[in-house]
């Protein structure tokens, strides 16, 4: 399996696809940095967390870095996974690999792991680049708690990306045609990214409870909530509050442990969703027959 991971990684890093993604991600982080440059002066830093404001401060017209990331991570996940299996079939390399003395599951495991490693390297680069330039810009070093919060944010990015990659791999196992499997993944992304939370759920939900329940079926919502709790320590809870309640809230940040407790359900649900996607594609792949055609 190590051999397959190694080859997949070599493939990813030499591919033009990956280069394009890297450029996109770097552009996004540059934009995010610029947004922080514009927005951080006016930001509320009474909480004492200055450094992580870099990631959440938005500029006059430019959204914050976390917004960019929540849009880009699904795209990266899909781009890394949409042709993982069906390309091997369509180029005829699958029967060649499977006739080597390896277990069949090491092919799909290796591809999934290599994808996650690529994704992790990309996002770690982004966060580190932004942190480095941000540090030069604002001159306030991160506290230990901020570093931990950023790290947990990084972990949730990887889990979120793993979900989308798992979904894309699932489509690449089920759908033989490369273009169709890409379209299917993008369709799901568009559905959750725009239609679901903006149109469908508000139309269906009658109460706040059902609204929250439905909205949290979307991995995008889960990720946004996790981001909020980790990078905006003053968030007391996730979801909607009655305006009466808000006036009683103290404007002080939650300790790390409490923030973690807040996002624990979101994180585990995302892990679960990613695991389900991968497990289904694993099973389907293992049962697929190599046919003579």
């Amino acid at each position: 399996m190590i051999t397959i991971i190694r080859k997949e990684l070599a493939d990813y890093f030499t591919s033009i696809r990956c280069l394009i993604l890297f450029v996109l991600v770097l552009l996004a982080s540059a934009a995010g940095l610029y947004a922080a440059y514009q927005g951080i002066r006016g930001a509320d830093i009474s909480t004492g967390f200055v450094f992580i404001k870099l990631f959440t401060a938005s500029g006059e017209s430019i959204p914050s870095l976390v917004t960019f990331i929540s849009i880009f991570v699904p795209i990266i996940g899909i781009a890394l996974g949409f042709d993982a299996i069906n390309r091997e079939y369509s180029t005829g390399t699958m029967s060649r690999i499977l006739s080597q003395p390896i277990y069949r599951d090491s092919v799909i495991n290796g591809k999934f792991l290599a994808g996650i490693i690529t994704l992790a390297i990309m996002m770690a680069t982004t966060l580190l680049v932004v942190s480095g330039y941000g540090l030069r810009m604002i001159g306030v070093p991160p506290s230990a708690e901020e570093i931990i919060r950023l790290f947990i944010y990084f972990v949730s990015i990887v889990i979120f990306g793993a979900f989308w990659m798992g979904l894309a791999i699932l489509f690449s196992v089920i759908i033989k045609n490369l273009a169709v499997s890409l379209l299917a993944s993008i369709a799901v992304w568009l559905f959750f990214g725009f239609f679901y939370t903006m149109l469908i759920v508000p139309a269906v939900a009658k109460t706040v409870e059902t609204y929250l329940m439905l909205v949290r079926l979307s991995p995008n919502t889960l990720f946004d909530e996790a981001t909020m709790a980790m990078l905006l320590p003053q968030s007391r809870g996730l979801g909607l509050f009655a305006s009466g309640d808000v006036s009683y809230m103290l404007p002080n940040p939650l300790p790390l442990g409490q923030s973690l407790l807040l996002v624990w359900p979101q994180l585990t649900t995302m892990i679960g969703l990613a695991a389900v996607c991968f497990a289904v594609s694993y099973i389907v792949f293992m049962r697929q027959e190599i046919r003579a055609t």
Partner: protein
Amino acid sequence: MEKNIVLETRELTKRYDGNTVVDHLNLQVAEKEVFGLLGPNGAGKTTTILMLLGLTEPASGSAQVFGFDSTREPLKVKRLTGYLPERLGFYDGLTARENLRFIAWLNNMSGGEANQQIDQVLEAVGLTKVADTAVGKFSRGMKQRLGIADVLVKKPRLAILDEPTAGLDPEGINQILDLIVSLPKMDTTVVMCSHRLYEVQRICHSIAILARGKLVVEGALDTLGREALAGGRYRIEVETAEASPQLVEIIGRIKGVNKVEAEGNFLHITTDSDLRAAISKAVVDNGVALIQMKVHEFSLDDIYKRYFQEEGELKQ
């Protein structure tokens, strides 16, 4: 001489959506021979191969390679077996050498051993000059050669080649056929599928013909034609200076001769065994000059046609 059987199928059967693609197939391939698997398209050759490698599960029956059951111990089978698929593909972005190295790694070869082996097989298939060119730029024939290299790089004890000469030019075909013929000397048994009968006739020791998943005929090539077409008899052609009726009669009296037909100066003789010595003696003793004499060889073409003629008649 008792030969070791390296590959054996017993009542091997496969069904796809109710169609029986391979039907109770019994095959045996002896060690260090070149075995030809023939049959029209859709006869079940590739499916049989996939079952031998454990890539597809049989509906019933079993396949054994080197004594390992293909369905239960596919890894052990695949460690000893190299497979050249009919529709072969490589990673276009990688060079020939990198493609082979990946396969060598998957076979747990160490770096140094792999490099040495890769150089050797690239040399053998004549791709040394383009070893570091991306495979995407290869022609069909070059890819086919790389496919053969790909099979050999793992030093298989059994090589299963599906259409090994597809897409090659005549010179390339000869080169690859020579390579295949040399494999048994290096302890590798070869099973090959091909539609080019003259190739099979040239290099195979034994053949099996499949049609609609069933075994039509199996056997060593040199005896198969005689058995199939002449009821196990020899046909001897004799050209003499003058074929007199008297001579025909004399030859007809030789023990073992079944039939003598004269056609101009040619005599067509059907015999039970190779009686060339006796016949030539009879001709010369009668004072007739013997110009030439040969045992009629049955080409694979004849054998193949004969079986598929029957098949065609059955269909009608």
